[in-house]
């Protein structure tokens, strides 16, 4: 990765090692027969880490986010070394579920976990992870569930626009058992899977004493402790290539919950111009540096609806790689709107990174909604009805132009938007 190369020679070797590993995973050509007697294993080893696969678009090594539908929207998965930021919904009901699916995916694939929270003890968070649907019986059950849900509706509705019935609700690629699993939100993960996994927890009230003095213009002590903890784990367990004797490479999945809330000691949610308003942005910058030089991926949930200074939200978005916003309908006027009656909220994909690319990898579906059925969390395309007001011909092109501008700086220009600007 280009960013890795600029971070130092030691890091560069890791990056190239990962790149060769990914390149060798792409080819299916295998040498058969005995090797020449003179050489002993001079070729590169086919290193493949469980639970990862190379992206077909830009060669990055990807891990699954725990939701196959979300993987599809992000272009295959979360690239190693990047940050996935989730903007929490107002009552914090659905973002913990995404957080837990990410961690559960790590346990199922055998990755090392690092869970940091200021609100709940990480051991309690791990107890509440959803159970994976691993065997074929449950997969069939899931398929039937989806199918039964679809057919009664599709029989009633479309007489004239019947071709729309044939469109899939959401295109989910084939889910192999090694990348991306479905999770049952109503069951807990079996205890033996948690015990067999390697995890580290960071619970802020235990790690920090309350009488610590805060120096001005530096990171909040909670953030400093967390960064030191992450750095220790990365260097001790050799995720940054500092321990070359390690046979089996593994990925570190970092999960940080409720970053930026007052429980971390950060006052961006309390005041508009606090004393350490740059603390969070500095933290994200240093965290991204740590991630780029190691085999790790990070998920962060942040209560952006509480942040008082909107400029901080823009800076945080720029400092993260993938930003997804969850908007739930609870308590808003959309709850009673018949358009949204099947869904529990909307998903906004606010930013997708451009990793070693000039264009980014966005899907063409922009109106996405999610619903949490009893077992499964599904993301579907939301079909909005056409706008039949008087000003439809005049304002529609402007709206599209504005939406391209909004998505532009983060995601790159989309060709679809240019179609509507005719001269």
């Amino acid at each position: 990765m280009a960013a890795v190369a600029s971070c130092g020679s030691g890091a560069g070797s890791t990056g190239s090692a990962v790149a060769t590993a990914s390149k060798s995973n792409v080819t299916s050509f295998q040498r058969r027969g005995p090797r020449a007697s003179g050489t002993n294993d001079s070729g590169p080893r086919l290193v493949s880490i469980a639970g990862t696969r190379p992206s077909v678009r830009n060669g990055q090594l990807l891990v699954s986010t725990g939701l196959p539908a979300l993987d599809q929207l992000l272009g295959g998965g979360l690239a190693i070394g990047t940050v996935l930021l989730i903007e929490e919904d107002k009552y914090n009901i659905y973002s913990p579920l995404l957080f837990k699916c990410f961690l559960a995916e790590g346990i199922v694939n055998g990755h090392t976990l690092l869970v940091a929270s200021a609100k709940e003890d990480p051991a309690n968070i791990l107890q509440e992870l959803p159970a994976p649907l691993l065997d074929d019986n449950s997969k069939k059950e899931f398929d039937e569930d989806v199918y039964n849900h679809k057919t009664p509706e599709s029989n009633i509705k479309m007489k004239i626009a019947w071709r729309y019935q044939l469109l899939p609700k959401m295109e989910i690629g084939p889910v192999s058992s090694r990348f991306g699993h479905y999770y049952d939100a109503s069951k807990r993960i079996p205890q033996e899977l948690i015990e067999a996994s390697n995890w580290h927890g960071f619970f802020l009230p235990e790690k920090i004493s309350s009488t610590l003095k805060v120096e001005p213009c530096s990171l909040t002590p909670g953030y400093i402790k967390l960064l030191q903890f992450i750095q220790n784990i990365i260097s001790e367990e050799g995720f940054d290539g500092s321990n070359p004797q390690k046979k089996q490479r593994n990925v570190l999945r970092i999960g940080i919950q409720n970053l930026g809330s007052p429980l971390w000691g950060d006052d961006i949610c309390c005041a508009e111009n606090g004393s350490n308003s740059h603390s969070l942005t500095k933290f994200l910058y240093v965290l991204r540096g740590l991630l780029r030089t190691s085999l790790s991926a990070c998920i962060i949930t942040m209560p952006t609806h509480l942040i008082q200074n909107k400029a901080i939200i823009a800076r945080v978005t720029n400092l993260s790689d993938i930003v997804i916003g969850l908007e739930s309908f609870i308590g808003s006027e959309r709850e009673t709107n018949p358009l949204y009656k099947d869904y529990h909220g909307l998903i906004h994909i606010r930013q997708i990174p451009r990793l070693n690319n000039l264009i980014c990898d966005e899907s063409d579906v922009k109106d996405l909604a999610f619903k949490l059925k009893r077992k499964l969390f599904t993301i579907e395309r939301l079909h909005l009805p056409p706008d039949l007001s008087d000003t439809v011909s005049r304002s529609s092109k402007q709206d599209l132009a504005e939406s391209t501008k909004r998505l532009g700086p983060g995601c790159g220009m989309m060709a679809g938007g240019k179609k509507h600007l005719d001269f």
Partner: protein
Amino acid sequence: MLDSLLSLGGLVLLRDSVEWEGRSLLKALVKKSALCGEQVHILGCEVSEEEFREGFDSDINNRLVYHDFFRDPLNWSKTEEALPGGPLGALRAICKRTDPGPVTIALDSLSWLLLHLPCTTLCQALHAVSHQDSCPGDSSPVGKVSVLGLLHEELHGPGPVGALSSLAQTEVTLGGTKGQASAHILCRRPRQRPTDQTQWFSILPDFSLDLQEGPSVESQPCSDPHIPPVDPTTHLTFNLHLSKKEREARDSLILPFQFSSEKQQALLRPRPGQATSHIFYEPDAYDDLDQEDPDDDLDI
């Protein structure tokens, strides 16, 4: 639901305003929990101890443990009874108690604490106090802790109020109409949808809670009772609704682009009139049947 607020535990936020004050509701809830036999601790910061204890019976007054921060908030008199660490120290000392049993802590008021302490420290302390009992597998059986905080929402901006309400398990916003007080209760259970409810109530002079039905809804007088509203669907020259037979006929109609078996048969069957097809044309007065090309006259 107003009377079972304290049974859920955690932080209960009482948001009041100038028109609808919340201290009487706070005292009513304190009295109710004292009568239930729970330990009640009061951190009095905004009003004096005498004023707070006014209106309570003597047995309730004996059960309340009052920590006074009104008389000497900065501890200038340096007496031995001064509590170290200020209000937060007192909160932590209550947490470290060893006797089991449910505890109610009333903060009068959270606004005073917000104005004197940094918001993040207060949030961390409240979280530590209210979540003390939620760790499973803890050897010492510590009782449930409820923290009742009175917050004057007009004193603070949206930031601190938002931060505190995201921490709170229950949020009670006081309002009302025409002399009748109401409490809008928003209950956030972890990992479940929040439930909200509006309860009309009044506080009796001895600080007991009286739940009531809402005020009688007066029927709005019609703006113009003599003219009935006009129904635009009467006297139309066209049909807006379909009769049952028409609906059935419409449902059984085959749409032109749907490929059904009859259509398939019709296409596969050889058409009888295909070999001989005629076009019948009647020229009228303006048609020019001259076969010459008019562009031949051009001399380029």
